[in-house]
């Protein structure tokens, strides 16, 4: 976590441009056909279990196996590499960018993600807290739970195979929890945000400032 946080700079950045620019890449090699055009609005997955797919963005076809890739966030197609339409692309090639309008809650989360130490998911799987950590959270709340380097903090569950996950990082409190029990987390996405105990007041100050500076939820 950075020692120097320039609140004004952070806030003015979000004030002047309250959007996320989400790049969408080719999931693997193949021939790409776009399903959207620049300026088009796209929807994120919806439904109670996010079972309703988002707007179709592109189709990628490898060895006669077509795959539709849908939007994972809502917004507007800000930029599309239309020169790639119908072309064979490599895995990871940038195809388009979605301009996603940020809500107040997302702005707070984005700022926190910049200042907290994020502990990422080692694999795409479902996660739950280790029993000891969960009972400490139940008793005192997450922000009263301090974790140390090497401590077993989570269990990763994939195809009924449970793997303990050990915390790697400096000692700190669990400030933010980014996963829900029973909901899959993609590899590399943050699971928890950790903060040194003495820096908790600074974090609280950030949240208060954002709440005060943004009148509306949007």
């Amino acid at each position: 976590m950075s020692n120097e946080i320039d609140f004004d700079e952070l806030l003015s950045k979000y004030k002047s441009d309250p959007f996320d620019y989400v790049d969408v890449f080719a999931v693997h090699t193949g021939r790409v056909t776009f399903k959207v055009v620049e300026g088009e609005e796209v929807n994120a997955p919806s439904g109670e279990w996010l079972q309703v797919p988002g707007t179709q963005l592109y189709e990628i076809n490898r060895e006669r196996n077509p795959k539709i890739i849908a939007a994972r966030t809502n917004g507007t197609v800000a930029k599309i590499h239309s020169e790639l339409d119908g072309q064979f692309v490599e895995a990871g090639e940038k195809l388009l960018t979605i301009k996603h309008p940020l809500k107040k809650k997302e702005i707070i989360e984005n700022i926190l993600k910049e200042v907290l130490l994020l502990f990422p998911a080692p694999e795409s799987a479902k996660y739950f807290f280790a029993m000891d950590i969960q009972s400490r959270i139940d008793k005192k709340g997450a922000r009263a739970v301090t974790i140390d380097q090497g401590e077993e903090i989570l269990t990763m569950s994939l195809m009924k195979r449970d793997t303990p996950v050990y915390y790697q990082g400096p000692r700190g409190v669990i400030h933010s929890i980014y996963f829900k029990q029973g909901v899959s987390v993609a590899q590399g996405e943050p699971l928890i945000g950790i903060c040194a105990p003495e820096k908790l007041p600074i974090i609280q100050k950030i949240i208060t400032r954002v709440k005060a500076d943004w009148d509306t939820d949007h």
Partner: protein
Amino acid sequence: MIENNPTPEAVYQRLQEMLAREADVAGSPVDAQAVGRYGAFIGSVINSHDSLPRAMDHARSLIEKTVRAGSSMASGTVILADTMTQSKGRFTRNWFAPPGGVWGCMIHANTFLPQSRSFISLATGLACCEAVREVGVEQATLRWVNDVLVDGKKLAGFLVETYTEPVHGEEFTLVGFGINANNCLFPADLVDSSVSLKQVLDEKINLPDFTSLFLARLAWNFGLLYHEEAKGLKGGRFSGRDGRHMLLQRWQACSDSVGKKVVYGFDVMTAPDYQAEVLGVDDDGGLVLLLEDGYKKTEYSGEIRYLQP
């Protein structure tokens, strides 16, 4: 006196019988001898006990003791106990392990590629289902991920946990198994949903023989995972129909989950999430579900219960 004390030789003999049968299948894309070589380490060491608190805990301490003594833990070591006093299922569920059952754990030094690791649970349930069918319970089926059912009642359950030993950081997979064999008494809350081999066959089975058979099937299925990995690494297709992974093909042949109306949940007993119909199993072993609103969802974790027989 320890009742369930199969020998490594008995497991190997069972595996050889299986290899001979599989090698006789004309045109099989599976190299049975290679599968046998890949899987033969399972059951090469068997530690039988009259009672243990919990086999998984015993396995962890055995691994730690072994590596702290400067030795390597033998992959494929099997720990068995005639009874277990503190056995448990997933989450906070109890597992009842009285005399007469097959209770234990297999230690696997994790040398699988990530995709194969996801198939360990499937391979374990399949090994049990195949062994149960081989002793005459042909109606045994698999409920995703790896519950073995007979006429809708649970005959066996499995736990797969990863353990990283503290000296060198080597990762092991602990495959816990609980198979109701000759035990016929169940706690009141399980009596309607559990069944044993003795109840189904109406006679006692030879426990060490059945355990050898189960371990040989486990050896075959783990060998199959390595066999399919080798094919994949060479850039070839897997051995099943249309290039499907052979373990998935065999699992699906034993499972009755497809087409069933189910309730799904990460912990379905205490927190069921939604109802759906099972459409199939994808190439990663994930369960493809059709929700009531017509949309599909694929789950890679959690569990199901059938809403119909």
